[in-house]
């Protein structure tokens, strides 16, 4: 490949806060370049899961190659890499960014900079990318171009004067974006004769091809038939196909050169073998060093997932396996609960990741699930010198075995309109946050930094944040190690029997209020039985909260008026339908809703 051709390549990402129009802009770029005819245009083409389209977020990274015939008569190749837009997927974002030379930073003209705008801008700057600001949603009456441009200059520190001001929705000024990509984003470097170095930025499983690995060739040349090695594991494979990604499928090219973005297949069976961030090199002439920045992503949030109908265990397992094929960050292993029967302990990158997996299981596989309260990984130093990591509250050691308990904490950045600062500070305080600093982004918006225990964030934090800021505040966080903490294990007993699926770990100071609240919630959600059901929250053998589900004394005594027997039968039928869904726990029947209700307590 000639140096001339390389000069015509632009590799870039689009980064933005959720809902600022990233995927819509990607659609417009595809359309503008005639890569996709208008009639084939589905909204948000790159988000090909229904869930992504609905929620307006990108869950998996994706890349597409665009041939663009510019007004100057030159033909350019744009490799556009769509990145996941959520804090759970920061590592994936950082790897995708490393495959690029530049990034379009999309900012909503009505909202301005948000927490993830900043977080993503920092990630892009860390990766040495040229940032091209794009102000979107200019079609809205409340668009304020000057304010947003000033904010970009003041807060992020990049020039925004004259940056493209577009409406991805209506297609306004997309040509400016195309020109900015050509003018401002550098063409890739790299030496196509050097030893091969390719960065893996994603992989997907395909039942015909095996794993399709998305790569950016940094140095060297990759050809079909080459024997390749994955540098983190040393595993070797023979390349079968090499090519580029087009909007509606893969196109074999036989070779990829330094500076290009494309894919390879090599009869790889498991996406876990092709970790995002790993380096692909030649087995016979390997690179001396892998590309920097590779790390094993680890699940931060764990929860039990159980089929609501116990007989659906195998179907649930098949579904989890299918999801794992495409998601190396998602882990699961079988676990058993006395209350819920056979199920799985699942590990997620974060809460959103967890919600997505749950929702996909229910939607794509039509499963009815019970999910237990999410937990983080606690680090316990035992008195016998052993250190254990606990991701399931049920396995939490008894207090007399514990020398020191530690929990993961995060560095959190919250951006909010100034009027909500008080409420948000109260919330962070309440969630055991340690204030770090606060600064005004402009006269109306404030960025707050806190250190917060992760287990407070996974517990209803987003909802509380939204309700205290009328939906305006945004949050970004990254893991920042472990800190010793005073933790206790809280159990719940129904009718004297412990319900393992309800056990959780909580800071000792918050144990009482939370125990009371959950006990109350359980009371409201456990259907009444013909006998009294005591609900107890206990730390060890000490009961700290108590409620009672009163015995059912009466149900409807309506007369069978005028011989209307059918109505009576329908009523009984409905009642029976409800009973069928119950879990039997000893002598107590519990509805699946009861387990779910304790997950969402609302903002106090």
């Amino acid at each position, binding site marked *: 490949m000639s140096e001339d051709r390389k000069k015509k390549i632009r590799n870039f990402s689009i980064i933005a806060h959720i809902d600022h129009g990233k995927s819509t802009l990607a659609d417009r770029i595809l359309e503008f370049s005639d890569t996709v005819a208008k009639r084939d245009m589905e909204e948000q083409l790159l988000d090909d899961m229904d869930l992504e389209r609905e929620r307006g977020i990108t869950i998996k990274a994706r890349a597409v190659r665009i041939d663009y015939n510019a007004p100057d008569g030159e033909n350019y190749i744009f490799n556009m890499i769509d990145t996941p837009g959520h804090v759970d997927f920061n590592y994936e974002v950082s790897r995708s960014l490393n495959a690029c030379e530049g990034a379009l930073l999309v900012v909503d003209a009505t909202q301005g900079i948000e927490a993830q705008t900043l977080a993503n801008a920092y990630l892009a700057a860390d990766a040495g990318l040229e940032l091209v600001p794009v102000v979107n949603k200019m079609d809205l009456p409340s668009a304020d171009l000057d304010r947003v441009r000033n904010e970009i200059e003041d807060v992020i520190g990049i020039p925004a004067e004259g940056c493209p001001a577009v409406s991805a929705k209506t297609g306004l000024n997309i040509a400016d974006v195309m020109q900015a990509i050509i003018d401002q984003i550098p063409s890739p470097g790299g030496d196509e004769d050097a030893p091969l170095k390719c960065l893996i930025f994603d992989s997907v499983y395909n039942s015909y091809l095996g794993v399709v690995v998305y790569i950016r060739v940094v140095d060297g040349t990759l050809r079909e038939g080459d024997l390749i090695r994955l540098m983190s594991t040393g595993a070797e494979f023979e390349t079968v196909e090499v090519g580029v990604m087009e909007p509606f499928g893969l196109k074999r090219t036989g070779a990829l050169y330094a500076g290009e973005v494309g894919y390879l297949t090599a009869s790889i069976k498991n996406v876990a073998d092709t970790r995002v961030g790993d380096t692909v090199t030649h087995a016979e002439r390997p690179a001396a060093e892998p590309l920097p920045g590779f790390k094993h992503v680890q699940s931060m949030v764990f929860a039990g997932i159980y089929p609501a109908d116990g007989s659906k265990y195998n179907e649930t397992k098949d579904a989890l396996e299918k999801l794992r094929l495409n998601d190396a960050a998602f882990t699961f292993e079988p676990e058993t609960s006395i209350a819920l029967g056979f199920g799985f302990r699942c590990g997620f990158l974060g809460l959103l990741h967890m919600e997505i997996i749950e929702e996909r299981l229910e939607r794509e596989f039509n499963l009815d699930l019970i999910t237990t309260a999410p937990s983080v990984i606690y680090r316990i130093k035992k008195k016998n010198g052993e250190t254990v990591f606990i991701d399931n509250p049920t396995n939490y050691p008894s207090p007399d075995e514990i020398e020191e308990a530690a929990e993961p904490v995060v560095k959190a950045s919250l951006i909010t309109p100034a009027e909500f600062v008080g409420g948000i500070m109260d919330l962070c305080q309440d969630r055991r946050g340690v204030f770090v600093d606060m600064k005004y982004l402009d006269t109306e918006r404030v960025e707050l930094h806190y250190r917060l225990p992760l287990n407070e964030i996974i517990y209803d934090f987003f909802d509380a944040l939204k309700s205290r800021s009328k939906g305006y505040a945004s949050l970004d966080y990254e893991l920042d190690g472990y800190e010793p903490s005073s933790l206790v294990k809280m159990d719940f007993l129904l009718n004297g029997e412990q319900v393992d699926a309800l056990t959780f770990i909580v800071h000792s100071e918050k144990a009482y209020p939370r125990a009371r609240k959950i006990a109350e919630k359980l009371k409201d959600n456990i259907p009444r039985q*013909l*006998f009294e059901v005591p609900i107890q929250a206990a730390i060890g053998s000490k009961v700290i909260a108590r409620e009672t589900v*009163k015995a*059912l*004394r*009466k*149900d*409807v*005594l*309506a*007369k*069978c*008026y*005028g*011989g*209307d*027997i*059918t109505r*009576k*039968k*329908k*009523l*009984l*039928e409905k*009642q*029976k339908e409800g*009973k069928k869904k119950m879990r039997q726990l000893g002598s107590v029947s519990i509805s699946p809703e009861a387990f779910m209700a304790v997950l969402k307590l609302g903002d106090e």
Partner: protein
Amino acid sequence: MKIDLYDKKRLGIYVHVPFCISKCAYCDFNSFVPKSELIMADYVDAVVSHMEDYREAGKGYVADSVYFGGGTPTALPQRELKKLLSAVGKNFDVSKKAEFSVEVNPGTADLSLFKMMRRCGVNRISMGLQSADNRELAALSRCHTRQEFAESFRLARQAGFDNISVDLMFGIPGQTVESMLKSLAFVMRMEPEHISLYNLKIEPGTPFYENREELKAVLPSEEVEFEMYRAAIEAMEKRGYMQYEISNFARFGYRCLHNLKYWNCEEYLGFGVSAHSYFNSNRFAFIDSVDRYIAAVKDKNSPVRITKESEAVEARERMGEYIMLRFRLTDGIGSVDFARRFGVSFESLYGRKIEKYVKDGFIEKREGTYALTPAGMFVSNYILSDILEFEDLGAVTGNIT
């Protein structure tokens, strides 16, 4: 021996009169205050004509119970009520010994009306009192007082009615165990033959339902309601009113034969809007709208469907119905009777399921019969929905239309 019943099958006849002088705030029955006497006359004509349509079907049956319910049958002008009462005997073979009941609201009947009813063959009056506490009556928006009830009762006796039933209610806003027992004592002093005691239920579509949140504060709790029920049963038994069904109490020989038909899975035909029938192994009901009912009866080619639901009751479902209905009765379910009806023993099908209820005192087992105890009757839906299978309720065949 009732000789006249030997050759013929027995039938109950129900007639629904959907008119009232005023609508009570808790009532979800099909009843309303008519705009004019004209519509009442049209309605009566339609019901009479509807009975004529069933004349053929009723051959081979003898009616041993007739029941006029509502609404308020006595809200009809006297001549219209008379027309309707007489129509039954003109179209069906009504036994001379048949129980013939009419519901009467206090204040809606004078002596001449009672006498007219007597002449038409009516021999049982069911009076809706609900409470003898005038404040509670006001809370229910009933249109009569305790004094008006006493007067109506006296007139009925004077006209010669020797079988009178009185409806009472518990669970009324503001009601206490004491006030409920006082109402009951008041009624028992009048010495009716039969007492029905219903639990107020807040039904969708009623003013009570609209105000259910505010009502919560004044409605008796479940515990209090249970105590009302328990205490009422005890008080009535002391005075010879023996419970024979969840809500019904009678002196010896005065159980309501018509209602017993419902609970014994016997046949009955209903006429008028919203009237239900169980006839030839079919359950069906007529539409609720008076106008549409009149139109459909008058014009046989009318596109208006007069039935709103109908279902053929299959064998297994018949068994479920039997259990559901017989468990309302203190006589309960007899092993021998059950086996004779269905050719299978009750114990083999349901024995294991009812074990725990027997153990916990919700079902009483004695000499080959199973019956709900008062505590069991109070939670009968819970128990029935547990022991009956979907097949018993007709859900599997899905034949409820």
